[in-house]
């Protein structure tokens, strides 16, 4: 007696949908994921652990406000900006220290000073800013508040680097500026807006630009 066996019937189309899904996913990744391809290509075949770099910007301490009016005998130091009452002829300086840290092979980064909420300076009030390095040397020329400025690009390696910068804003109330008459007069506020200190990685070369 011979017994013939035949392979069991495969359910038709059982793997068809998963295959299509996988195919679609891969196609989407390939079409849109140039950068992702670079990352995987760089690390393919590597032995050991790939450690990512680091990029960080931090304010160093609270902001400091100092009166700089040259005609005032004892200008106020480290004043409370919420309590200080400026008058025409006054000059005041805001100082904010911040640190920039980079770590990583070929890490390049740029620091930008820009405004996420615009400044509002009434007529007769002006403000300019500079960024100083750790040696108190200006990295950019004096720039009107509200105008974006880019600091020199920083380059790092795996050992990393940290730079200490200082933002210095000089507020000036023109001596012939408008005065307020009485407590009922509209409030005049010199609003510096929201200053954003942005540190961004810079990459160059093919496929590096997103």
């Amino acid at each position: 007696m011979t017994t013939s066996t035949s392979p069991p019937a495969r359910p038709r189309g059982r793997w068809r949908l998963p295959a299509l899904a996988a195919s679609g996913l891969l196609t989407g990744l390939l079409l849109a994921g140039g950068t992702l391809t670079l990352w995987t290509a760089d690390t393919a075949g590597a032995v050991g652990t790939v450690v990512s770099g680091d990029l960080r910007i931090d304010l160093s301490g609270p902001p400091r406000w100092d009166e700089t009016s040259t005609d005032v005998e004892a200008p106020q130091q480290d004043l409370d900006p919420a309590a200080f009452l400026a008058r025409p002829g006054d000059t005041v300086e805001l100082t904010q220290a911040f640190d920039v840290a980079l770590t990583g092979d070929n890490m390049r980064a740029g620091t930008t000073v820009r405004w996420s909420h615009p400044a509002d300076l009434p007529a007769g009030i002006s403000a300019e800013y500079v960024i100083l390095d750790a040696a108190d040397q200006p990295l950019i020329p004096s720039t009107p508040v509200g105008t974006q400025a880019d600091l020199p690009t920083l380059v790092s390696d795996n050992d990393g680097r940290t730079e200490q910068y200082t933002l210095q804003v000089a507020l000036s109330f023109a001596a012939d500026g408008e005065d307020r008459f009485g407590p009922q007069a509209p409030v005049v506020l010199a609003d510096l807006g929201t200053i954003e200190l942005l540190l961004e990685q810079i990459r160059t070369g093919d496929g590096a630009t997103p």
Partner: protein
Amino acid sequence: MTRTRPSRSAVVFAGSLAVGATLAIGGASLALWSDAEHLSGSLAMGYERFAVGAPGADLIPADGGSASFAIDGQDAASTLATDGQWAAAIQVDSLSQGNKGLHYTLTEPDWGEGILGAAAVEIFWVPAPEDCRPGVTPTPPPATVEDHTSTPVPATYTANTEAVSEFWCIQAELDALPGTGEYRNLARVTATDPSDIQVESTDDWNALVGSHLDPAEEPDHAIPFTYSTFRPGDAP
């Protein structure tokens, strides 16, 4: 009309394609790193205030660097004509915040040709409104006051909201209204009558002479005050 439904396979493939593309685009964005910090700040401006008026009344704030104290001419002239003396106190409030001082000057007006013009009028500083009375003698003012000027607020920084109040006194004295007095006429007549007897008769009469000045015609007067603010080191 018939409508063709996309096949199940096409739907699955398209969905997977979209998921893959989304993941990849997200991966590309994350490939560039960034970090940011934010800070904000603002400064408010202070104000100045200068107002003049009768003590205890609503003072009139200065408009454009000047204010004035109004005098009811008829009331003052009437009191002067009746009592020979009249006085009124003036309150001056000064406030200047921040690094600005305040200085002011009052100017004695031309009192005109009326009753106040005929009186001896003097304006001087007094420590309090009750020190302003008819016939009072002026007291020495503080160092911040000189003649008709004062610097009540120095240019040193202040965040005060309370004004500095100073008081002045207008004092007038009138001995008599111009042209007033007494008139007396004395007449004596002598004659000889037909019988050759000398006769004489006398008579006299008098009158009080009033002034042509009428308190009801006294115009109102105003004492102008002008003020200015000044920075530290600047002369007021």
